[in-house]
């Protein structure tokens, strides 16, 4: 049973993660690479072509917690693509296991019939709601304190997910009021603001990035929920079919 949960989560994560990683390579990463050419334009010397593109630490030491210029980063090209693909699939596995855990705790199985709704809820909680306060951010854009943004991101995801879960369990009048409060409170509190300084990144890159990342996240989440549910259904059928097969 635990094996079934992990198997379904990992299959869904692998499939949805690979699709997301493919969209990222074609539509998202080119924008990141383009933005990095503007990052730290003041005082950044391109003395080492192999590492300069990705070594933001030496470009903008003030914006980083880790200013060591000699730190490791994957080389641009195949290595960077491989690491990004791996990281996306691992993050997908993390998301899949978390919604699998929620389905266990809440006693709402993820099926092919409701997988799309699970995916939609995941998208609202982990992509759209956090992006409402912290717009998808390209390297080189001014941003507030990292720890504060991570805290707000996590709290917003948790709060929005709580609202979705509550409405999945009950449609009572009070539940709508509580869910609305859970969704709204993080935005009334407000995300940590970005400092009032000019962005090094051109606006058209930033707007395209926001649209493409939210779009690819939506594809990722809808696939994740749907495939998760499909695999769960197949596993449930198989466990039912086994005793039937023994008698036949």
């Amino acid at each position, binding site marked *: 049973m635990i094996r079934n949960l992990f198997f379904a989560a990992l299959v869904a994560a692998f499939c949805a993660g690979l699709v997301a990683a493919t969209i*990222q390579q074609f539509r998202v990463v080119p924008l990141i690479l383009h933005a990095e050419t503007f990052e730290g334009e003041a005082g950044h010397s391109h003395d080492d072509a192999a590492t300069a593109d990705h070594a933001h630490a030496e470009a903008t030491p003030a914006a980083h917690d880790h200013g060591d210029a000699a730190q490791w980063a994957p080389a641009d090209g195949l290595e960077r693509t491989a690491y990004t693909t791996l990281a*996306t699939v691992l993050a997908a596995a993390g998301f899949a296991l978390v919604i699998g855990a929620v389905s266990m705790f809440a006693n*709402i199985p993820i099926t092919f019939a409701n997988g799309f709704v699970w995916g939609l809820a995941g998208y609202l909680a982990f992509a759209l709601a956090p992006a409402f306060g912290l717009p998808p951010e390209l390297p080189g854009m001014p941003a507030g304190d990292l720890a504060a943004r991570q805290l707000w*991101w996590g709290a917003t995801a948790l709060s929005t997910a709580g609202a979705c879960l509550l409405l999945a369990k009950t449609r009572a009048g009070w539940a709508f009021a509580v869910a609305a409060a859970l969704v709204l409170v993080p935005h009334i509190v407000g995300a940590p603001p970005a400092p009032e300084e000019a962005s090094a990144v051109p606006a058209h890159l930033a707007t395209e990035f926001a649209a493409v990342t939210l779009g690819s996240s939506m594809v990722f989440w809808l696939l994740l929920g749907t495939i998760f549910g499909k695999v769960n259904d197949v596993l449930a059928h198989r466990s039912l079919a086994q005793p039937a097969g023994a008698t036949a």
Partner: protein
Amino acid sequence: MNTATTTVTNSGLSLSLSQRLIAGSLALMLGLTLLVGTGFAGDFRLHNGAHDTRHAMGFPCH
């Protein structure tokens, strides 16, 4: 056919509370570990390796 479909839809509900709690806790711990590692960890190797993923999936980076 009808009984089979009903059982399938309800199979997740037939798990005992302790089974669900154990499976859920294990999945939650592993899932959060993966999310923290790919999306939040400050270690420069994890940050740089997962850099483009963090930006693409909307995690706060930098």
